[in-house]
């Protein structure tokens, strides 16, 4: 079943473009990545889903219900982790968490302490006195304390140290295993690489690619770097190689195709070193970003 269904969603701020024509679905139980350069429309799409802004045209449903009409109802099961956290003046962390929990039925105090422990969050401090990263943690706990079925993350790990980031990802992965669906917006491709099942790339308000991570990896090339004294470009110029570069004793290129063909050629040369890598998601997407 589709948890999120977005059809031809459009948002214009007067003449300024928010998003142009966005359509995609997020299936139950998957971790869906949403990537794009700054200003592409990631935040706009998310804010439309949450009912913070209203669409110019098109529709968006969550759990089968329209986001605007049934907003309050569907938000009962959504956890939203915003990119920047601001809270009420002089509030203590625990007061905010209690206040947030009061919007969701049931007693969440255990969850709050559990999550705070994992995230190493000091409940007694004033939010305004916390560092950016710690404020982020408040956002994370606040978004997850009610065991939401859909978790929407907007640049969630910016500001967290690598250890905390890893803890956070592990936690999200666990929640996902327990059945939560995750929509993950980011421009840090390594995160997306680590967590997501499927990925949508948005640029200038339009979705330009929608693919599963597996396919993306398979469809892409290997990055090969060879070191040797007498290397020549022409030797490696077979079908499937591209962007051959040679600099001093180092030859680099991308290759897609039958791996045997290229290894034979490499084997036929006198080389001192070889490096065969998967391109990073960065390199893949930069290709798409262009």
């Amino acid at each position, binding site marked *: 079943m589709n948890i999120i269904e977005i059809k031809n969603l459009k948002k214009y701020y007067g003449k300024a473009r928010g998003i142009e024509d966005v359509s995609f679905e997020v299936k139950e139980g998957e971790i869906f990545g949403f990537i794009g350069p700054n200003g592409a429309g990631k935040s706009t799409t998310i804010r439309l889903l949450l009912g913070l802004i209203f669409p110019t045209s098109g529709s968006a449903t969550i759990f089968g219900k329209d986001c605007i009409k049934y907003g309050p109802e569907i938000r009962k099961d959504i956890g939203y982790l915003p990119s920047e956290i*601001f809270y*009420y003046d002089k509030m203590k962390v625990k007061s905010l968490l209690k206040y947030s929990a*009061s919007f969701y039925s049931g007693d969440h105090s255990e969850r709050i302490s559990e999550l705070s422990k994992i995230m190493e969050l000091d409940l007694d401090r004033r939010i305004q006195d916390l560092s950016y990263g710690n404020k982020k943690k408040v956002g994370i706990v606040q978004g997850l304390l009610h065991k939401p079925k859909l978790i929407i993350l907007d640049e969630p790990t910016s500001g967290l140290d690598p250890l905390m980031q890893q803890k956070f990802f592990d936690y999200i992965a666990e929640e996902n295993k327990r059945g939560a669906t995750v929509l993950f917006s980011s421009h840090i491709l390594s995160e997306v690489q680590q967590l997501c099942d499927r990925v949508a790339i948005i640029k200038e308000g339009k979705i330009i690619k929608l693919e599963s991570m597996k396919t993306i990896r398979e469809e892409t090339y290997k990055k090969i770097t060879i070191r040797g004294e007498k290397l020549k470009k022409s030797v490696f110029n077979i079908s499937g190689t591209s962007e051959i570069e040679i600099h001093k004793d180092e030859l680099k290129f991308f290759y897609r195709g039958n791996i045997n063909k290229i290894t034979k050629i490499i084997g036929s040369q006198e080389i001192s070193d070889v490096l065969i890598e998967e391109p990073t998601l960065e390199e893949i997407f930069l290709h798409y970003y262009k």
Partner: protein
Amino acid sequence: MNIYIFELKTYLKSALLWSAAISAFIFMVMSFYPGMMSDAELMDQVLASFPEEFLKAFGMAGAISISSVVGFFAFAFVFVQLLLAMQSANYGIGVLSVEERELTADFLMTRPISRTRIILSKFLAVMTALTITNLFVWLSSIGGILIFNNGNEYSFKTISLILSANILFQLYFVSIGMIISVLVKKIRSVLSFSMALSFGMYAIFTIGEVLDTVNLGVISPFYHYDPSYISLHGKYNLMMTLLSCVIIAVCFGLSYILYRNRNIHTV
């Protein structure tokens, strides 16, 4: 309910401060009554010799003799209203806009609640805070009169009528404040608006009083709930009160509709 309680807590300290300040002011002013009495008696004698039309032209017809307790109270109460106006305008303009000014909108509006619930809770919280202040105004007004009446008699009914208008007076500023806050894209300084609104209405009234013809004063709640009028006629100015209520209802209704459909943008 949780929003209501939270918002009320936010306004409680301020409401108590205002209550203390306004109460102190009321007591101070009432304490001057005994001293003013003799001066006022003189005025009564002179004014009695003038025909109504002339007094009207100066707005003096509306002034019941200030040598009486009620007359003096009514006369001084305008300033109490000014203070109430500043407080109410401040609350009205600030209560909805605070979420976008302090950037907490992303938190509050992504909770599983409707905008309707947000606006109603906030409105009720603000009105509760203002009613607390109103309570103090009642207490100190009655207290002041009881202590400083100097043996003169007074109509408790008239005093109550004047004081009962407070809630509508406050409502007026709250609803106009709210509609302003929803119409203006980004409010950076609540005080500019609230001070301008409250003092503006006050200024419009006082100058409007002087000019007898129908003037801009009709939009000012100082005019709608003019204590001097009430004390003179023993009842409310029905037309103006009605007008006032209509404005309150329209402003509140519009605020509600506009806030429900408001796009909340990112930081």
